[in-house]
């Protein structure tokens, strides 16, 4: 059965936590997008401030994953990066996976390599919080 996919015109947000971003040295880890089922949130469903509140509730209330910023990317742009990735062209999709407390939640189900993850990170519009 084919899963529902977010259309290319949608914008999505990725929470950027301290584990993935050395803000002081402005270095990112490919871990931000590496692997399967990377969590993102859809700006079509909730506003930036509502998603930010959820990110903060998810992370800042725990002693574990402080939020350092958000990374925004257009779904179509994300897909182009995947297809154009020379080492291993990858068809990326964004699949809605609403959660209790975050109905904007979605995931990228494909297995993203470190190299592809870095290309996605380079394309993010990062907003420090």
């Amino acid at each position: 059965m084919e899963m529902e996919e977010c259309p290319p015109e949608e914008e999505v947000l990725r929470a950027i936590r301290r584990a993935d971003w050395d803000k002081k040295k402005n270095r990112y880890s490919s871990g931000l997008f590496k692997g399967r089922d990377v969590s993102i949130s859809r700006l079509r469903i909730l506003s930036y401030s509502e998603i930010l509140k959820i990110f903060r509730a998810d992370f800042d209330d725990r002693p574990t994953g402080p939020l350092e910023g958000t990374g925004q990317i257009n779904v179509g742009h994300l897909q182009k990066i995947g297809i154009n990735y020379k080492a291993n062209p990858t068809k990326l999709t964004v699949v809605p996976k609403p959660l209790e407390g975050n109905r904007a939640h979605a995931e990228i189900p494909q297995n993203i390599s470190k190299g592809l993850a870095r290309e996605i990170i380079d394309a993010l519009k990062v907003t420090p919080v």
Partner: protein
Amino acid sequence: MNSLASQTESRMIEIGSGSLSIGPNSMAASGKYVTPATGIKFLISGALVAPISAGVLSLGGYPAALESNTLTIRKAFPSAKSASTHYDFGWDDQSNKESSAVLEVVMDPMYELLGAHGVSRLSEFRHYRQGWDNGKGASLSPNSEKQFATFVQKFAGELGKVRPSVFLTREGNLQLGWEDTRGKAVEVEFFPSHLDVFIESANEETTLRIEDANKLFQDI
């Protein structure tokens, strides 16, 4: 001028043009431990501090207590090793002006490599619990940290040139990241049994053993 600030939050002992700072979790004392020869002696055991060459000693990120002439760092890294060093310094207390000497400095390559900022990140990652990334993300693997410490000790000189950042991955592994001479990313993830290496300039993802990791530093 050499001085010891009286505030408990941040104590600063200046050493020439540099300084020794004791972080917010520190306790410090003065005046009780005078020795006839050199004044107060602090035997510093545990983990310290870089860059020594610039005359800067910093204990930021190391919870420390000063008791009976011994400044004890409560969470010394397993990689800490001793070095015989002697530093003379003095301070102005609220009521006393005294001099002191550090008789032994224990050098920690981890601290020298990562600095207070990196050590602070590493310390924080140790407290991350299972599910730290939206329900995903394993807590830090002790075996990964062991590999990490071994790697840092083996390649301390090379890593000192690239001043890497430390990260925690969702697999619960530590990871170092830096740029090569072309400004391209190099990442080393410390799995318990091996290293996962990503070299952006070659778009190469490979697996290495620590013994074979020399090649990582051929381009720095």
